[in-house]
């Protein structure tokens, strides 16, 4: 067993360059596979706008374009801080109120063009 390990070690020393390349490829493949798995399992794939077909949606997404500092968790709670907090709160809630709230009207049979013709009114026996 020890002899075999020594022979293997000598073989590696004689073929250092190919072994290095193969090892690097195995490590890269493994890490890439883990990354892709996390990408799928974590749900990031569902929010990836770089996928084909999402070009128009990219323009609708509002990035973190405002460079205002986050509300500080420390410091005095004076009128300035309260006004700042209320202003930020109002800004966010106004934005949320204007957004799509996943109303099902867009998915009605009429909207999808499925409402033409007779409908099934009783279970089929």
């Amino acid at each position, binding site marked *: 067993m020890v002899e075999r390990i020594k022979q293997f070690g000598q073989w590696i020393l004689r073929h250092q360059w190919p072994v290095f390349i193969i090892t690097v490829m195995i490590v890269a493949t493994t890490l890439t596979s883990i990354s892709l798995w996390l990408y799928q399992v974590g749900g990031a794939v569902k*929010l990836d706008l770089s996928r084909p077909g999402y070009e128009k949606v*990219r323009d609708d997404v*509002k990035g973190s374009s405002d460079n205002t500092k986050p*509300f500080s968790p420390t410091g005095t709670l004076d009128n300035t801080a309260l006004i700042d*907090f209320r202003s930020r709160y109002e800004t966010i809630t106004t934005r949320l109120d204007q957004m799509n709230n996943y109303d099902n009207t867009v*998915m009605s049979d009429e909207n*999808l*063009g499925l409402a033409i*013709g007779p409908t*099934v009114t009783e279970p089929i026996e």
Partner: protein
Amino acid sequence: MKKFSLVIIAIVVAGSFASAHVLGMPDVTTISVNCPAAQSILNQIQKADTGSRINRGHDYNEMLDLMFAMNARLSVNKIAAPALTSLALQFEQNLQKFRNDYNNYDDIIASALDIKCTNRPIDFYNKLEMVRAARDLLRQDTVILSQNIDNYYTEFNLVIEEAGRW
């Protein structure tokens, strides 16, 4: 006992066939003819919903950070507000539920788009019903999150009033 078991099995099987069609479902021919256009519209809805989800997620995260920052600041200023802490945690939990429900909704709508609907119109319509249910769940989540935000603000104003601040 065997006869009784066979009767039970027969009832269950008959029931499963009876429920294969959703009540109020359009005519199968109508679905089969119009479903490619319906899938195209669903595809557009899915993409629009993705953008909306990203924007909502960004604003919800910002709101959560604001809540945590305010709670910390109240603590630094020695103002007790356990209700605000509880409300912020409740918002965080509901936000996580919204994220999970969106992932589920996206999976279901993707499976509805994968169905060869001209060959399987009933399966497509059944899947469409599932999409609607999942989307309605998302709508409910946004309503709850909105209520959480309102409750936090109401409680915040009470705390500030009691603390003698403006």
